[in-house]
Every structure is written in structure tokens, then in C-alpha cells.
């Protein structure tokens, strides 16, 4: 199985060097990748249908428990077949759809990347690798939505989709890690055994919340649904493949996968039922008001995803059987309708159903495919959709609680909306009289209308032979979701019962609605007035808010003024050091240990303080520089008094040199200007004094502590014995720590080089202002 995941990834990266080559007629090679993979999985159908699970293990990062574990059970197989099977159709279709496009190679690279990632998601037996592939699908979806990268709307939609699904990914990761840590394993097949332990854990509600957010964002459940209609900016093959048949079902897959691990509790059931139930009816109503073909399909997709989530929440065996069938039903008819929409858009350059009419006259085969898909989506008897809808009604009617009737009502209402949406997207553009402007429209390439035709015909064939389909494809899927044996009995004819009555009523109501309500621009605009309270709007406002806070933060903290950085750094240091000082209690001074103070020292200190005052207050640069040198000389004298002759000599030399250099170089600078207002210096003075006080207090506290002299004693005793020198400071510098001094010399040499080159550097005439 690993090879099926890697094939796409490798081919995808090969398209970087061989992109030009694949743009020629050799592009015919591309669709054969999904064909081969599809055949591979088809070959596994009989094995898996017997209830065998195929497991493959490959160590990757064993120390972290991240491995390439692949497992093929009924649920994985159904998805793998959808991914590769519909992928085959999409690859043939997309090759013609994008013929001659500049980014033809890029498109297929993304598509292959997506296919691999999606296969990885459904095959992974390790929740961490599942997450990695999950994120890869989000990323490839981002690139595909933003494929028309010169359109601002495309870019925005791509960003929106990525931020929603990416955000969901974070929550999902947290949920997965919690699950893995509690159960002690990240392997899905081992997690089944930990079901009771997980649902009894106090963190169980949190895990459910996190994983549900991950799944809801991916599968476009309310209130995260809005990215999916936006994602319709992608080329239509992408919408058909990612945003209806496969990727958006990853969330449903995740929920289905975790049903035997986290499910069968009230919390799980109620959450999924409420979110799924609201989403399905909300989106079904929305789809009625769209005039854009893709908009209709997008909202009906959201609604269908809602139905799947809702059924998983209902959670009975009947409901799970319905899920396993409805996934297949929906993928077949929705991919068809999308591809048909793509053909219409490609040939007529409009997707507005108020303008499209009578196209059956110019593209009959497309109309047939579209009609079959619309019938299946409406659940007309003898289609696969009919069986799917029956199962949904059966599941809601047999629900154990006494509000089963309300769930059924909800399902019926949603399905009425879906019937109408399906007819409007699949039949309306072809019905009526062909207007003059569409007379030139021709039938597209065969490779564009044959894939939807195949899918649509399958939707009918499966409906005619449901028993075979159920036994081979859906039975093990349902078993995998339920975590046990389910009763799969797909029949075309159940006899006259309440389910059939509901089905017929749904169909009748849907058709009535199709004729009664015509979506127009006005109705759409009226609906859009409510956008202010929509989650999309709120999300955008949150986004803007974050941007504002970030720019405010940047402007305040990172405003480009050096002194303001200094101020913040120093204030922060004061807070930190002050807090630590305050924790240490009062500062004590040991007066007995202090050295006595003599009058000349006092005199020097007085001169020093005076010089300091001059530096701070003077307006003349020369005064300031000279005062600095005075401070240096005073310190030099202190060194003399307190037994540091070497320091005194160094300080004296260096101070003199600095002053000379300063005066030589800076004599032509202008005098200080008083830039700031009155308040600022006072504020700075307070901050500065605070810092001085804190440093002084630290010094006092250190002085009170006993001094360790072990190292000094070693140097003192061994200066002559080991190093043959009598001046201990010199010995330390040139002998004990000679290497340090050597590097210090290097530093000084570099500084000297810098000084020399800066002095020698002549300004170019252009640089002189």
C-alpha cells in the first residue's frame, strides 16, 4: 500500500523537472497513474469483502511512535476506491479541461500530491501519520483553490480555506495526541481496544471537542461551512474531486474512523446530530437561493456532508449502513454534476442558471449524464440514490428515542431541498428553448463527457443491483464504522411501507419546489443582507481584528526608534530585577567590614559627581567629552588608592586616547539640539535613576554575602612558583589566561582594522549630501 501513496508523491515531484514534457501529447500518461491504483484496490475488493484486513508496517520514527502503518479495511477500501476511481475520471477530464493552460504541469502536480495525501489519510493506521497526510490535503487544496493566482478572489478563498482547515488541523492534532497518550498507543487498530478506557477518562469531552472541530472544519460543517462555497473558485475538476467527492469527506471519514474508538456515547451522538442536523437543513435552504451552478452544488454538498455527520451521530446500525451507502451515492452523482457544470462553463462561459437554457440540443450526451445524476440525487426509484434515501429514512424512523419523528422530518425537509438543487443543477440548463447566443456551442472532447457519463451510469447500475454492491463495497465499510457486524440488506423494492411513502412525498415536494421557486438575483441579494451575522463575516472580522492588534503591537513595540527600544528593555529589566530584589527581603549593610573613608576620596567623588552632572546637562559636546574623561581620571585615581596600579595605568592611557580620538574626529559636529519636550527627560530620568538604584541595591546585597577567595588564593600563591611572575594581575592575563588575552588582541586588531578602513574610506561624490 505504501507504493500507492508514494507513486503520486514521486510523480508529483517529477513534474517539476519534466513539466514541459508533460505539457505535450505525453500528458496522456498522467491518467494512467490513478487507473493503475484503482485497479490495485479493485483487486483487493474480494479479499476485504471476506472481512480480512490487510496490514502493512514500516518503521519511520519508532522512538516517537510515528510509523508508516497502513491498514486496509472496508472503510479505507471504499474511500480508496472513490479517490482513485473518481480520480481516474477527473484526470482524463482535467487533461482536456485545462488543455494548453500555462500551469498545466503545476495543476497535475498538485492533483497528484492531493491524491497521495488523501490515500494516506484513509490508509494510515497511525493517527500521527494520518494527521500529516490530513495537513497535506489542506495544503494541496490551498494551491488548487488559488490555482488562478492572478485573481484576488481566488487567492482570498484559498487563504480562507487554508486558515479554516489549518486551524481545525491544530485542534485535531491536540485531540489525537491526547487520545494517544491516554490509550498509550497511536495505532488505530489497537485503539479500538481502549474504547471503554477513553470514554471513562475525565478528558473525554475535551478530546471529542477537539477531534470534532478538526472534522467539522474539514467537512465544512456549520459554523465552519463557508470556506467550501468559497473554494468553488478552483477549476471545476478540482471542485468535483476535492470539494465534493473526496477531501471534504475526510472529516466524515475521521468521524467514522473514530466512531468505534470514541463513539457510542451520548456526548458524541448529540454533538454530531446537532451540528450535522443544523448544517444539512441550513445548507439545503441556502442552495435554493443560488443562481450560480457551482454555488448550488457547493451548498448541496455541504448539506450532504451534514447528512453524513448527522447519521454518524444517530449512530444506530441502520444509520451506519446508511452512511456507508450514502457516501458512495453522493460521490457518484455529485462528481458527475460538477463535471457537467464544468463542461457547461467551459463551452458557454457562464454558470448562471437564469441564463442557461436548452443546452440538450447541442450536447445531448452531457444532458443524459446530467439527467441520470440528477435522478439519482433526487432518489427516483431504480437509482442508487433511491436506496440511499430509503436507508436514511429507515435510520431516522427506527431511532430509539421518541423524537425519531422529528429527526425524520428534518431528513425529509433536507432531502426536498436536495431534490430541487439536483434538478436545478442537472436539468434546468438543458431544458427549454435554446437561446440564440448558445447556438454555436459544441459538444466537448469525448474525454470530458465520458467520465461523468460513466459515473452517472454507475449510479443507475448500482441502484439496479444493490445486493451485489452492498455485499462487496458497503458491508465491510459499515462493519468497520460500527466496530461489529451490521445487517446489510440492500434491496430495490421494500414493499409499500412508510419509507416508500416518505420517499415519494419527498420527490413530489422537491419537484413542486423546483417549479414554484425560481432563484433570482434579487432573492440572493435579499439573503445576503443577513451576512452580517454569518459566521463567515464574524471570521473575517476576527481576522481583521488580529491584524489590527498585530500592527498596533508592532508599531508600539517595534517602532523603529532606538531610544524607545532601550526604554522598554530597561523598564523590563527593572521590573524583573526589582521583583527579584523585593523577594529577597530588605538590604542589609555590614558596617564593621567597610573600609574607612578619607577626605581625598570624598573630594574625588565630589569631582566625579560634578562631571557627571555636566555630561547630562551640558549643551556643548566638548564639555561632555571632557567631563567623560574627567570621570575616567577620577576612576583611575580610585584604582590607585585601592591597590590596582595596573588598572590605573590602563585606565589612564585609554582614557587619554579616547578623548583625543573623540576631539579629533568630532570637532566639526553640530552642538546638541534639544529635541524633546519637557516631560520626556523627566520620565527618562526617573527610569534611569530607578535602574541605578536597583544596580546599587544589588551591589549592596552581594557585598553582604561572604566572599569566596579560593581562585584568587590559587593565583596569588602560584604566580611566582608556577609562572615566574611577581605581578599577579599580569601573570593572570598573559599566563594563566593567556589564551583569552590572545583573543582579546584579535578583537582589538579587528576593531583597529575597522577604524583604519573607516577613516581611510573616501566618500563617493554621490554619497555626499
Amino acid at each position, binding site marked *: 500500500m505504501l507504493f500507492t501513496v508514494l507513486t503520486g508523491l514521486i510523480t508529483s515531484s517529477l513534474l517539476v523537472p519534466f513539466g514541459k514534457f508533460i505539457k505535450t501529447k505525453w500528458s496522456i500518461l498522467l491518467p494512467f497513474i490513478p487507473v493503475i491504483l484503482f485497479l490495485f484496490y479493485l483487486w483487493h475488493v474480494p479479499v476485504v469483502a471476506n472481512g480480512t484486513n490487510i496490514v502493512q508496517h514500516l518503521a519511520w520514527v519508532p522512538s516517537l511512535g510515528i510509523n508508516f502503518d497502513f491498514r486496509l479495511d472496508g472503510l479505507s477500501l471504499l474511500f480508496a476506491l472513490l479517490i482513485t476511481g473518481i480520480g481516474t475520471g477527473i484526470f482524463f477530464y482535467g487533461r482536456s479541461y485545462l488543455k494548453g493552460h500555462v500551469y498545466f504541469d503545476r495543476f497535475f502536480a498538485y492533483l497528484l500530491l492531493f491524491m497521495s495525501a488523501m490515500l494516506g489519510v484513509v490508509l494510515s493506521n497511525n493517527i500521527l501519520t494520518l494527521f500529516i497526510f490530513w495537513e497535506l490535503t489542506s495544503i494541496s487544496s490551498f494551491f488548487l483553490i488559488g490555482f488562478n493566482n492572478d485573481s484576488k478572489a481566488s487567492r482570498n478563498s484559498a487563504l480562507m480555506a487554508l486558515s479554516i482547515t489549518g486551524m481545525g488541523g491544530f485542534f485535531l492534532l491536540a485531540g489525537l495526541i491526547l487520545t494517544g497518550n491516554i490509550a498509550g498507543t497511536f495505532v488505530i487498530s489497537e485503539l479500538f481496544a481502549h474504547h471503554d478506557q477513553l470514554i471513562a477518562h475525565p478528558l473525554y469531552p475535551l478530546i471529542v471537542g477537539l477531534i470534532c472541530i478538526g472534522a467539522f472544519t474539514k467537512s465544512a460543517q456549520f459554523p465552519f461551512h463557508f470556506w467550501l462555497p468559497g473554494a468553488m473558485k478552483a477549476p471545476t475538476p478540482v471542485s468535483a474531486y476535492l470539494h465534493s467527492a473526496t477531501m471534504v469527506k475526510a472529516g466524515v471519514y475521521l468521524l467514522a474512523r473514530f466512531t468505534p474508538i470514541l463513539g457510542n456515547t451520548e456526548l458524541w451522538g448529540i454533538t454530531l446530530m446537532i451540528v450535522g442536523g443544523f448544517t444539512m437543513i441550513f445548507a439545503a435552504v441556502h442552495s435554493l437561493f443560488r443562481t450560480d451552478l457551482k454555488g448550488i452544488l457547493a451548498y448541496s454538498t455541504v448539506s450532504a456532508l451534514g447528512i453524513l455527520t448527522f447519521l454518524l451521530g444517530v449512530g444506530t446500525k441502520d444509520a451506519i449502513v446508511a452512511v456507508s451507502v450514502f457516501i458512495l451515492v453522493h460521490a457518484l452523482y455529485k462528481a458527475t454534476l460538477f463535471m457537467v457544470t464544468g463542461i457547461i462553463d467551459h463551452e458557454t462561459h457562464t454558470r448562471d442558471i437564469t441564463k442557461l437554457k436548452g443546452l440538450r440540443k447541442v450536447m445531448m450526451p452531457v444532458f443524459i449524464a446530467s439527467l441520470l445524476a440528477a435522478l439519482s440525487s433526487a432518489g427516483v426509484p431504480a437509482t442508487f440514490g433511491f436506496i440511499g434515501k430509503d436507508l436514511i429514512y429507515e435510520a431516522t424512523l427506527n431511532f430509539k428515542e421518541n423524537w425519531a419523528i422529528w429527526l425524520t422530518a428534518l431528513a425529509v425537509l433536507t432531502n426536498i431541498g436536495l431534490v430541487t438543487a439536483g434538478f436545478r443543477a442537472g436539468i434546468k440548463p438543458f431544458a427549454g428553448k435554446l437561446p440564440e447566443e448558445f447556438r454555436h456551442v459544441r459538444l466537448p472532447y469525448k474525454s470530458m463527457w465520458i467520465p461523468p457519463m460513466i459515473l452517472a451510469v454507475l449510479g443507475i447500475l448500482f441502484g439496479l443491483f444493490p445486493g451485489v454492491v452492498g455485499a462487496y463495497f458497503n458491508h465491510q465499510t459499515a462493519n468497520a464504522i460500527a466496530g461489529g457486524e451490521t445487517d446489510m440488506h440492500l434491496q430495490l423494492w421494500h414493499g409499500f411501507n412508510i419509507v416508500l411513502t416518505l420517499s415519494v412525498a419527498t420527490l413530489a415536494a422537491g419537484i413542486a419546489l423546483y417549479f414554484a421557486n425560481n432563484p433570482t438575483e434579487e432573492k440572493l441579494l435579499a439573503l445576503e443582507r443577513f451576512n452580517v451575522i454569518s459566521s463567515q463575516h464574524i471570521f473575517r472580522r476576527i481576522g481583521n481584528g488580529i491584524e489590527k492588534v498585530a500592527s498596533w503591537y508592532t508599531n508600539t513595540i517595534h517602532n523603529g526608534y532606538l531610544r524607545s527600544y532601550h526604554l522598554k528593555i530597561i523598564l523590563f529589566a527593572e521590573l524583573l530585577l526589582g521583583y527579584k530584589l523585593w523577594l529577597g527581603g530588605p538590604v542589609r549593610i555590614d558596617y564593621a567590614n567597610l573600609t574607612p573613608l578619607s577626605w581625598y576620596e570624598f573630594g574625588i567623588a565630589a569631582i566625579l559627581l560634578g562631571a557627571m552632572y555636566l555630561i547630562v546637562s551640558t549643551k556643548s559636546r566638548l564639555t561632555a567629552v571632557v567631563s567623560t574623561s574627567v570621570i575616567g581620571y577620577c576612576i583611575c585615581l580610585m584604582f590607585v588608592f585601592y591597590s590596582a596600579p595596573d588598572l590605573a595605568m590602563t585606565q589612564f592611557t585609554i582614557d587619554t586616547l579616547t578623548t583625543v580620538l573623540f576631539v579629533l574626529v568630532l570637532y566639526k559636529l553640530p552642538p546638541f539640539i534639544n529635541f524633546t519636550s519637557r516631560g520626556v527627560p523627566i520620565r527618562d530620568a526617573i527610569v534611569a535613576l530607578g535602574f*541605578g538604584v536597583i544596580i546599587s541595591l544589588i551591589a549592596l546585597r552581594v557585598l553582604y554575602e561572604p566572599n569566596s577567595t579560593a581562585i584568587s588564593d590559587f593565583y596569588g600563591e602560584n604566580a611566582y612558583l608556577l609562572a615566574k611572575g611577581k605581578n599577579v594581575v599580569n601573570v593572570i592575563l598573559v599566563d594563566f589566561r593567556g589564551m583569552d588575552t590572545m583573543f582579546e588582541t584579535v578583537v582589538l586588531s579587528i576593531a583597529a582594522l575597522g577604524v583604519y578602513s573607516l577613516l581611510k574610506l573616501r566618500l563617493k561624490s554621490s554619497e555626499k549630501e
Partner: protein
Amino acid sequence: MELLLVLILGLLYAAGVYLILRRSMVKLLLGIMLLGNGANILIFVLGKITKGSPPVIDGAYKVFQDIYADPIPQALILTAIVISFGLTSFAIVLLKRVYALVDSDDLDDLNTPEEEDI
């Protein structure tokens, strides 16, 4: 005497901080120099200060006969003085260069030239 030194180093730090909060590049440099001096005295005062007994062994002996000043802070400070000279001299020349280019002592003027180029 320690108390006086502590007072001096505190004020040196305060004056240094005050100067680096100004807009003038020269003041910034002077502030850094004062901070350096303050740090030197801080190290000095934290080693035990001793009067009149430098860490130099008398000519006739091989080891110290009497109490002597701690040599380690002195070695550290000596290094610090020399390094800060390297920094200061480079900064002074850099200032001259900046002044030649921008014709100003104002730090804020350094923010603008790039934008004007655009």
C-alpha cells in the same frame, strides 16, 4: 568607602541609561562609556577592596607575606577597559562616517534614508 563607590556606580549607571535614552548619537556613545565605567566599578567593589597592598609579590619573596588585593576583579576589569576602548574607538569613527553621510547627529535621521531612496 564601599558605600561611596556603590553610590558612584549607581549614579554612573543612571547617567548612562539617561544618555542612551536621548536622540543624539554622541550622547548614546557617551552613555555607553559611562555604563562601561559603572560596570568596572561594580566588579571592582564586589571583589574585596583593599588599601595600599597591590597584588604584587615583594622582590625578595616567592609568595605573599601579607594581605593583598584580590587580583581577579582587576584582571577582569583590565580586559573590560581594553575591549571597551576597541568598541568606543570604532563607534567614534563610525559616528564620523554617519555624520558625513547623513549630516546629522540625530538617531531618527538614520531611519529615513532608505525610504527616501525608494
